[in-house]
């Protein structure tokens, strides 16, 4: 077995020092070492986006990185984005607009959508669909996911209460 490697990461604001195997994927580090099971694994070919987290403020598929590659960085997972008492606008949008059914793709979808709104606060429907291309959902047909992101964009722009599809 390969030598373990020491890494330091800040996850959801908490600093962790861990010894990891070099081939440990970031997603498994989050799920198994840190017990942050909100980040999901939906495939083994980097196609589904269920594992999306923010690494130093940018969305990445955490199954495409080794934990050692995250050494020194700051990570936000779905658990750190917002809590039930203070939801991130994207989380709120998904709830309000029924942007989820089984919930399995949802954490990755929310992290990808939050990243989009960081880069592009008022995306068009087409831009939303394009930005979420890397995230698969088998349940929703994406209809309400689009509306959820529109809701969040409006909310973040201060247009509270404006129905997303008005």
């Amino acid at each position, binding site marked *: *077995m390969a030598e373990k490697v020491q890494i330091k990461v800040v996850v959801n604001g908490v600093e962790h020092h861990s010894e990891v*195997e070099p*081939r440990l994927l970031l997603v498994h580090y989050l*799920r*198994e070492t840190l*017990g*942050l*099971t*909100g*980040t*999901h*694994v*939906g*495939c*083994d*070919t980097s*196609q*589904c986006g*269920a594992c999306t987290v923010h690494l130093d403020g940018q969305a990445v598929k955490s199954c495409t990185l080794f934990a050692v590659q995250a050494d020194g960085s700051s990570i936000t*997972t*779905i*658990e750190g984005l*917002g*809590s*039930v008492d203070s*939801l991130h606008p994207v*989380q709120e949008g*998904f*709830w*309000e607009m*029924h942007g*989820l*059914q*089984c*919930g*399995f*793709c*949802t*954490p990755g979808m*929310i992290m990808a959508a939050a990243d989009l709104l960081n880069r592009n606060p008022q995306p068009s*429907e*087409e831009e*939303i*669909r*394009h930005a*979420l*291309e890397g*995230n*698969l*959902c*088998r*349940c*929703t*047909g*994406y*209809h*309400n*996911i*689009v509306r959820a992101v529109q809701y969040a964009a409006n909310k973040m722009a201060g247009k509270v209460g404006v129905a997303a*599809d008005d």
Partner: protein
Amino acid sequence: MAEKLFGKAMKRVEDPRFITGTGNYTDDMTLPGMVHAAMVRSPYAHARIKKIDVSKARSHPGVLAVITGQEMKDAGINSIPTGWLHPGIKTPPHYAITFDKARHVGDIVAAVIAETRQIAEDAAQLVEVDYEPLPAVSLGSDALKPGAPAVHDDIPDNICFTWSIGDKEAVDKAFASAYKTVKLNLRNNRLVPNAMEPRASLAQYHKASDEYTLWTTSQNPHIHRLLIAAFIMGIPEHKLRVIAPDVGGGFGSKIYQYPEEIIVLYAAKKLGRPVKWTARRSESFVTDSHGRDHETVAEMAVDQNGKITAVRVNTIANLGAYLTTFAPAVPTYLYGCLLAGTYTTPHIYCHVTAPFTHTTPVDAYRGAGRPEATYLLERLVDVMAHELGMDPVEFRRKNLIPPDAFPYQTPVALQYDSGNYEANLDKALELVGYKQLRQQQEEWRKQGRYMGIGVVTYIEACGLAPSALVGSLGAQAGQWESALVRVMPTGKVEVFTGTHSHGQGHETAFAQVVADELQIPVEDVVLVHGDTGRMPYGWGSYGSRSAPTGLSAIVLATRKIIDKSKKIAAHLLEAAPEDIVHEDGKFMVKGVPDKAKTFFEIALQAHLAHNYPADLEPGLEATHFYDPKNFVYPFGTHIAVVEVDPETGKVRLLRYLSVDDCGPVINPLIAEGQVHGGIAQGLGQALLEEAVYDKEGQILSGNFLEYTLPRADDMVQIEHDHTVTPCPHNPLGVKGIGEAGTIASTAAIANAVMDALRPFGIVHLDMPYTPEKIWRAIQHSRPAQAAD
């Protein structure tokens, strides 16, 4: 008066846990001492297993056990049975781990249990299997050819069963005297369900009590408990608890009894440690039950008035290598019985031959038989309309079952209880602007743009189903559903259902209904499901049965609570029970509003029983087992508008409109969500998805790169409306909506694409309509026209 919640687009109560990443899926669980399983799977579609050498794997550091099929067989673990039998059906054994032959790529030949998943997977590579590769067959019609390699040695012709329905003679006569007939050779492409959560199972054995707990990704935990206990492992049924926690989508693929569940249970006892297995997606592709895969010859006959006189169907339905739990029901009763559709066709005959092949088993996938029936019927209707020179809508209209014909007996066994098809169709046509669309299509064609409009009027039979009926058709299970409503001393209510929610929002929708019935705040109601240790026996969720059967049971149990509450109230208020009314959340003496007791007061007194009717049991809970009187029959109209680019062959969805009738809608947010998702899956079949096998039985599209699921930019915002025709035979009049989208949309999109290609003289292509396939068809049919 509390606000009525039936019909309200309430936000879902299950969402807070999912949007904050605190759901509890099987793979999220860790138990003390837990170890991990990895499967050794056959890379061959067909091979004799000459020898298995596990010594290297066994001595790999961290490996605890390597389990073979022979070991499990010797330990008395039996074959996995099927849950549906036809007369004369062949039911070859299906062992969790095979020991004689591998019969499809992915068939399990050994299991490795190790301290970590990584070690288990590494060691799985070290198991040395001496295979003798044998010729394989992957296509149903090839399996039927003389001399084809046999999947099971004692079934040399590969035929599992044949099945037919309808009056063949009458149909043949109708064809002989028809004004016009059309015939299509159709391939209904094989699909991989691909719920986003890969399957996972975690088993624990409790030595002191000799009990097992299995957490598994299931739509129906009681069915697993029954199969494992009574047939496969011989565990006393009361010593096995099966829990399906949060489940990340099912679509049929999580109904069946899978081998891995047996393996982790066996290993957990053997090692005395909890054992977890989680599928990698590449394993899901070759082991989750597949859907569809029909080869069909479909024919339609009409008279000179444009009335359909007969439909004749001959189908080869590929079952894959083994029979899974409901496989025999899907290409038969859920298929042939649906071939009347929404039409008055007097004569229908359907014959099905179901062979084994060296491929992954095929069973129900969202819609299960009904999308296959709808697809072929609606394709026939469009082709016939064109043949008659009629608009496809007018041809449909001429043949729709009129509203005064219900209950309507079809020639293929079903009796439709209710329906109002033409009004639904008209609503859809108006909403979509059908006339204008046809005009636009004309104009576009002049400009060399190819728009297609696909219309489908569908029916589905769901809400499975009267137990005696399904029993007479071969089901080895009942199809009633159970509910237990338990009121606590504080007036809070637990509702236990035998159905399972894996995305459908039952925790919300069912609570809305219970809150209405009991006239209490919805926050006071919690729905419990998915745990054989907590609920009464139930059959789970599939076939859009949860609302029509599960919720009916809940409503009737709730009404028992109300009846009992009235008796308690009558005692407390010194009135006759007949004089107690349940209004405004109170039980009051009719006409005397200040003589009233709240639900809380009743609940408390039911538990204290200090001041209580002498002849009444204490406590306040009720159970109801509801056996439906018939299927329910949702219906609707779906219209797809597409554009085909003749240069690239690419199909672009421009609009999609559905008008569905699932009776009264409990929660429009949830019902519409079900329709959206179903439409996306149907679009997937029409445009993108296909499990492609080569002749040797290797799957060529076994990952998300080769097997294309619909992505956000494949879809458009769906236009949706509904009509309301209540089901006449259940307490709320509700019908299922989980599968409608998939049942209708594949055919609607197929019809739209074929409509777009009409100027090229193309009558029919098989799905999926990939750009390459369409481009080639255009090149082939009218090279000159395609070039400009």
